[in-house]
């Protein structure tokens, strides 16, 4: 039996590029959360900004959130992956530059050009504005997404190159020799396995996303270049689903790397771990049909595949990563601080959000609950209390002044405000889905408004918590770049 000793690795400070990613992420995340609050306040009839501004803000919120969590996730992945492989700092920064250029284009399109076809930009809506926005505004939005996508393609190509150079191939990066052959204990560490998976699926997803964007851009100016709307929708959801799932898989690297430091217990790439990541690599590319279960024009087998994989995809998350985190924390003597708390709760948020997600993937449920607030209910749970909690945990980790530093009561209060605020807000979404409230409505019927009001208060609570998180990170930027021990050792070890 393998021994389960943990070999401590010195905590490395973040490179300037990682900090730049995180600062941009914090600012944009906060802004997008404020946009989210504005939408809830509008539905709650507390404000009256009107449909045009609601949908403009909704478009920015959707595109902005997808983009910014990807940026934050990339920062986590890059920070830890560079401990194992040789990554290009230049390409990392080029991705940030392209991201910012894309953001400016999208902001201009929406704020100046009034574009509001949602982040899903379903064909042919961007070209059919009923005179509310110009072709140029639509092109600017889609061009912005394309520029951001190009940046991520460059980043992933560099990661693929680095993994291939170090490990001899992407299959080896996923630990296939150990998975399919004799497990010699030399499988790549979890960070490399996760990064390989993310790189494979995102490169495929981004190429498909870029293809439909280019096709739609051509169609905007040459309408005789026709696009099949069903194909366009399939490509957009394929890209969108892969990309947003990959974001969580990037951020979970923080859990793989940091929790073992706190508990002095290793996170091993054993066969079950490797099998789950290989399974996820395949399944994440076939799960998107649950967004298309009401497009009966698709072949039935295709929709059934979506149903089945929707169910199966829940397994690796729950049984391997969630359970693995519980294992290394259970009776570990872990010292709870803001970092370990946030990373631990992120696994809860991820797993608990996956439940209504796979319920929605059930065809009979999907038939009466998809396109209701049930859908934002589940993805806000695993993105906000899962992925975003991982990001804030990583920020607290980088900024922790020393391994014995105590958290202030304000931070601890902010942690609970974040958990309660998020759960209250997402449960109100889920409950609204249960009572059939449609998604993406600027105005709600009177019967639905009480839940919008309740949600607004919870959003305010979590926004207050996020302000504390971000303020703390900014005030500790000076620490974040230095190399020193951050993670508090388990109690009994610290005492010896």
């Amino acid at each position: 039996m393998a021994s389960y000793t943990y070999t401590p690795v010195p905590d490395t400070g973040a490179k300037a590029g990682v900090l730049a990613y995180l600062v941009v992420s914090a600012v944009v995340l906060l802004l997008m959360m404020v946009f989210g609050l504005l939408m809830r306040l509008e539905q709650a009839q507390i404000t009256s900004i009107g449909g045009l501004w609601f949908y403009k803000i909704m478009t920015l919120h959707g595109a902005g959130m997808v983009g910014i969590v990807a940026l934050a996730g990339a920062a986590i992945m890059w920070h830890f992956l560079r401990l194992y492989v040789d990554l290009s700092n230049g390409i990392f920064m080029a991705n940030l530059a392209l991201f910012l250029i894309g953001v400016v284009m999208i902001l201009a399109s929406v704020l100046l050009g009034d574009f509001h076809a949602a982040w899903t930009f379903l064909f042919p809506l961007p070209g059919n504005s009923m005179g509310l926005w110009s072709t140029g505004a639509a092109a600017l939005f889609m061009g912005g997404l394309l520029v951001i996508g190009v940046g991520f393609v460059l980043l992933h190509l560099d990661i693929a190159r680095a993994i291939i150079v170090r490990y001899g191939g992407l299959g080896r990066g996923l630990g296939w020799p150990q998975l399919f052959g004799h497990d010699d204990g030399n499988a790549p560490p979890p960070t490399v396995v996760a990064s390989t998976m993310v790189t494979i699926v995102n490169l495929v997803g981004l190429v498909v996303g870029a293809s439909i964007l280019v096709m739609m851009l051509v169609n905007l100016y040459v309408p005789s270049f026709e696009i099949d709307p069903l194909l366009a929708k399939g490509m957009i959801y394929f890209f969108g689903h892969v990309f947003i799932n990959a974001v969580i898989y990037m951020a979970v690297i923080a859990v793989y790397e940091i929790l073992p430091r706190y508990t002095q217990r290793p996170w091993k790439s054993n066969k079950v771990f490797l099998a789950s990541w290989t399974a996820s690599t395949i399944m994440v590319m076939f799960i998107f049909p649950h967004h298309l279960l009401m497009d009966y024009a698709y072949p039935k087998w295709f929709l059934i595949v979506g149903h089945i994989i929707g169910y199966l995809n829940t397994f690796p998350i729950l049984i391997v990563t969630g359970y693995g985190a519980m294992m290394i924390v259970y009776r570990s003597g872990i010292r709870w601080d803001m970092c370990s708390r946030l990373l631990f709760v992120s696994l809860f948020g991820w797993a608990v959000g996956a439940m209504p997600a796979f319920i929605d993937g059930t065809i009979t449920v999907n038939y009466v609950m998809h396109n209701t607030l049930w859908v934002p209910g589940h993805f806000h749970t695993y993105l906000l209390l899962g992925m975003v909690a991982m990001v804030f945990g990583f920020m607290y980790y980088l900024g922790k002044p020393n391994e014995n530093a105590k958290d202030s009561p304000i931070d601890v209060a902010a942690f609970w405000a974040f958990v309660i605020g998020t759960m209250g807000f997402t449960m109100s979404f889920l409950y609204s889905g249960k009572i059939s409230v449609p998604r993406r409505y600027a105005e709600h019927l009177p019967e639905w408004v009480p839940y919008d009001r309740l949600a607004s208060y919870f959003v305010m609570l979590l926004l207050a918590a996020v302000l504390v998180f971000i303020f703390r990170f900014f005030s500790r930027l000076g620490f974040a770049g230095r190399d020193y021990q951050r993670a508090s050792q388990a109690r009994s070890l610290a005492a010896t």
Partner: protein
Amino acid sequence: MQETAWQVSLVLMSLIAFGVVYVAINSGKREEDYGPLVKSAYGFRTKLFWAVALLFFPAMIYNLVGLPLPYSESRADSKLGPAQVINVIGHMWYWEMDRDQVEVGQPVEIRITSADVNHGFGIYDTDLRLVAQAQAMPHYTNVIYHTFKKEGIYKVLCMEYCGVAHHNMMTEIKVGKS
């Protein structure tokens, strides 16, 4: 269906919450020897895997047993007579329907398409509960079969974001006796 989905979700979410709280409560005191702990945890994980598999797989199969899919023709009870057909075209931002009155208890065939962008055709019963939906997509016709069980005025709402008046894109289907 919504009630069931909500309750099943709550049970599953509570189980996860229970597990997480249990671990958090038992995290303070360190068990130095991780080897035996790992062995028993892996053993429990295997049991958990099979328990979950035995729960999920029958549930998954059960939900597929209705095949052909719930919105397919088999759901329309042909013994009750020929389907009443409603042809629907979605426009920015209104619904065009060739009939808006149907008989209660008789199967209805609803053929849905769009003249411009993607819309979603969602039927709400008199309690404002969504009972059926399909995408309204240009160049394609999605068909749903539905038998209205109660008389009354059913609302039709747009379920796919389609622009600035998406939330106002509503119409009605009157369900009554012949």
